[in-house]
């Protein structure tokens, strides 16, 4: 708790706390300097604000290092270390314990935020937006550093120092993915603070030209790529550790990361309308305000325990503080946007329904409804509890899927049309002509899938729409290659942004196919096996239990069932951790395959090593989700590379898109 004075008990804790207080002071100073610089238009003061950033970044880096050192040294005079670490953990667990609990993860968040602010301070151009964008970053910093240094300080000392710490949450110890997923998530969440800062800067200065959108696209793209990777990494973690063979459960905290993703995806498309056509100016401001706010909302949901969830392992005053900050972000964004509304009017003629803009806007519509559905489903039980005074409602996958599947299919449909359409307007006839090969490809693929035995309408539609998308992107690429008389490498070099977007779309299709097949055709059976017993046939596989072994570690124990599946050894474990005796954590054995995974999880295991109950799950195309994500991220990176000098260009004919 709030404990800023008693530094005595712990040297490292005192150093860390001093670093945080220093960072807090500099954040405040930076905000003031930025405000003065902005109001007076004094470049020198703005420059000072820019440099103050460096101090904040340096001090927070120091704080992070101090906490890591305390964790590695098992310095239990620091409360966070005593409560979330222990001497017997492996080194990598100690390192990742930095973000295993509330205080540390807020420190990580603040540090990443200061890192972004630092990069921003290096790349920010000397224009009127500068002090305001910096100032907005300082507002965010002030909040996160403030929370870190006060109500959620990881450095508060302990009066009586325990000999052994309590160790990290077992759920965070049983997979290396926990070293990756939270960091990716924060990189994604926090990355959105920069576009938000630019939006505020644009609103304050009234420089609502499309400059902020151009600059913002790259930052948003980076954040989006991290967010995508983080969400899938989280899914992969569930898949590898929770033992139910799935990767997405519409858990409130999963939802909390998905809402910003949906809004950011909408934003990435919508800003292109502004960039190209000068339309949708106020819409884009609203979208980024919503997107950044939704990351704070996500953290609030995660950390306040207001929605029941496996992730909500922290309570305390932090929730309320986050709610306040969320309100501030929204009010700041909304008030500024309302004030500048007259300047935000679009001057160009509005979009035609059949045009690139039309497709993007329709996509925006579906993305927003999607985000609303996810938010509603997540908060509905809380609303009911609020009104009725008791927990009396649950919203499960049935609700989310009922809307997510049609909305997702609708988005796939639009995704195929979008790249085909030119900006401004297309005439209906040529659109139909251009769509014909796509529709034929989709129909053909759907038929093939049907003949191959696929009967589920959702899966058939996903297959058809994927083929339709691929056909569209393929045709556009081939056409461009012919017109330019250039190969694919040249096209990639000349228009990395366009082909990066195509690649990201292909990755999303691969993910969509993986999701459709793995959820629909997952097979799942359980059986009890005896050691040395005859092979048992399950889901077309021969299962035989060779032996059961038990390993004891300083930080816990693990029991392993050595099962042969069709002659191949599967070592499926059940882990237990010292912090949570009585709570087994399954560690399934997964054999990954391009066409399907074989997944074996121990449900129970005999203490005397005689028998074990196992669950065998076979799901097709799960790996496509992981590979698809890699493709998406590669595509995103490609969109960020600067284009090579273009060769002489021809004006494309027909419906070939006129621009990126």
């Amino acid at each position, binding site marked *: 708790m709030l404990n800023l004075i008693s530094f005595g008990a712990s040297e490292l804790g005192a150093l860390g706390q001093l670093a945080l207080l220093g960072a807090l002071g500099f954040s405040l100073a930076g905000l003031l300097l930025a405000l003065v610089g902005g109001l007076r238009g004094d470049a020198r003061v703005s420059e000072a604000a820019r440099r103050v950033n460096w101090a904040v970044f340096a001090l927070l880096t120091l704080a992070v290092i101090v906490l890591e050192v305390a964790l590695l040294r098992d310095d239990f005079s620091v409360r966070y270390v005593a409560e979330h670490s222990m001497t017997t953990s492996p080194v990598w667990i100690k390192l990742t314990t930095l973000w295993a609990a509330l205080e540390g993860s807020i420190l990580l968040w603040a540090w990443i935020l200061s890192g972004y602010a630092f990069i921003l301070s290096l790349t920010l151009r000397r224009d009127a937006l500068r002090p305001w964008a910096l100032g907005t970053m300082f507002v965010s910093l002030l909040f996160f550093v403030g929370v870190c240094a006060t109500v959620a300080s990881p450095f508060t000392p302990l009066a009586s120092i325990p000999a052994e710490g309590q160790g990290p949450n077992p759920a965070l110890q049983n997979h290396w993915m926990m070293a990756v997923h939270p960091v990716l998530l924060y990189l994604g969440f926090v990355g959105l603070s920069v576009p938000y800062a630019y939006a505020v800067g644009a609103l304050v200065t009234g420089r609502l030209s499309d400059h902020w959108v151009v600059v913002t696209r790259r930052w948003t793209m980076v954040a989006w790529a991290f967010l995508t990777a983080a969400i899938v990494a989280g899914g992969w973690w569930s898949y590898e550790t929770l033992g139910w063979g799935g990767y997405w459960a519409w858990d409130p905290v999963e939802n909390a990361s998905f809402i910003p993703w949906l809004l950011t995806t909408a934003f990435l498309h919508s800003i292109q309308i502004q960039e*190209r056509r*000068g339309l949708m100016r106020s819409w884009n401001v609203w979208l980024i305000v919503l997107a950044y706010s939704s990351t704070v909302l996500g953290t609030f949901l995660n950390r306040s325990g207001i929605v029941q969830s496996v992730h909500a392992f922290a309570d305390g005053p932090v929730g309320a503080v986050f709610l306040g900050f969320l309100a501030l972000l929204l009010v700041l964004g909304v008030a500024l946007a309302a004030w500048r509304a007259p300047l935000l009017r679009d001057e160009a003629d509005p979009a035609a329904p059949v045009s690139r803009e039309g497709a993007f806007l329709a996509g925006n519509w579906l993305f927003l409804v999607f985000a*609303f559905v996810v938010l509603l489903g997540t908060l509905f039980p809380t609303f009911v509890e609020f009104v009725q005074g008791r*927990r*009396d409602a649950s919203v*499960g996958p049935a609700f989310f899927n009922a809307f997510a599947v049609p909305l997702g299919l609708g988005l796939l449909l639009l995704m195929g049309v979008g790249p085909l359409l030119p900006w401004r307007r297309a005439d209906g006839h040529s659109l139909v002509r251009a769509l014909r090969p796509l529709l034929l490809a989709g129909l053909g693929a759907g038929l093939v899938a049907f003949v191959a035995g696929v009967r589920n309408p959702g899966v058939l539609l996903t297959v058809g729409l994927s083929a339709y998308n691929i056909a569209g992107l393929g045709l556009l690429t081939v056409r461009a290659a012919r017109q330019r008389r250039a190969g694919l490498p040249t096209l990639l070099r000349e228009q990395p942004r366009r082909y990066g977007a195509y690649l990201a779309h292909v990755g999303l299709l691969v993910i969509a196919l993986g999701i459709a097949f793995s959820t629909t055709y997952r097979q799942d059976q359980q059986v009890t096996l005896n050691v040395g017993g005859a092979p048992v046939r399950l889901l077309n596989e021969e299962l035989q239990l060779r032996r059961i072994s038990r390993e004891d570690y300083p930080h816990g124990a693990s029991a392993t069932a050595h099962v042969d599946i069709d002659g191949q050894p599967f070592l499926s474990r059940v882990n237990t951790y010292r912090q949570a005796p009585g709570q087994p954590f399954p560690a399934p054995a997964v054999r990954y395959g391009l066409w399907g995974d074989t997944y074996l999880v121990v449900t129970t295991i005999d203490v005397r090593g005689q028998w074990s*109950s196992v669950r065998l799950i076979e799901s097709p195309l799960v790996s496509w989700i992981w590979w698809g994500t890699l493709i998406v991220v590669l595509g995103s990176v490609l969109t960020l590379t600067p284009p090579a000098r273009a060769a002489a*260009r021809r004006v494309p004919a027909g419906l070939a898109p006129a621009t990126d």
Partner: protein
Amino acid sequence: MGAALLTCSVAGAQAAAPATAPALSAEQQDRAVSIERNLRCPLCDNGESISESRADISIQMRASVRDQVAQGRSDRAIYDFFAERYGNFVLLDPPREGRGLLLWGAPVLALLLGGAALARVLGRRGQPVPTAPVAAPVPEESYDTYLAQVRQEVHTPNSDPAADRERP
């Protein structure tokens, strides 16, 4: 320590397959599974369904679902049975009635309202617009040039915000 807890989970699983489980046809089996997926384990914190959960109560509830399916009770009757005992909290697929209408109706409403708004935005096209050289394709321009242009505009000192709104 590890041994103790492993035994404890063993006890749970043994109960999972009671000897007196009614024989279900394949169709009934599917129905039972889909009902189990929509019932929440009343004692678990993480919102898992009784079909996933290994808690004793979930095992008993699964047996009860199978019993009731075997007796030919309707889905609705089975859900009501559990809602009466454990509260609406156990219904992972909230009924589409009463306050559930709010939940199920709001997305539909959002879809409709959004669609109407979209139609309005795109429909403005029909009205005559002062600046309207339609159908002229936007000339292809490389990202670089464009960025340079915008940068130049924004750099221009004392530029009127209105002036840099319309790109040449």
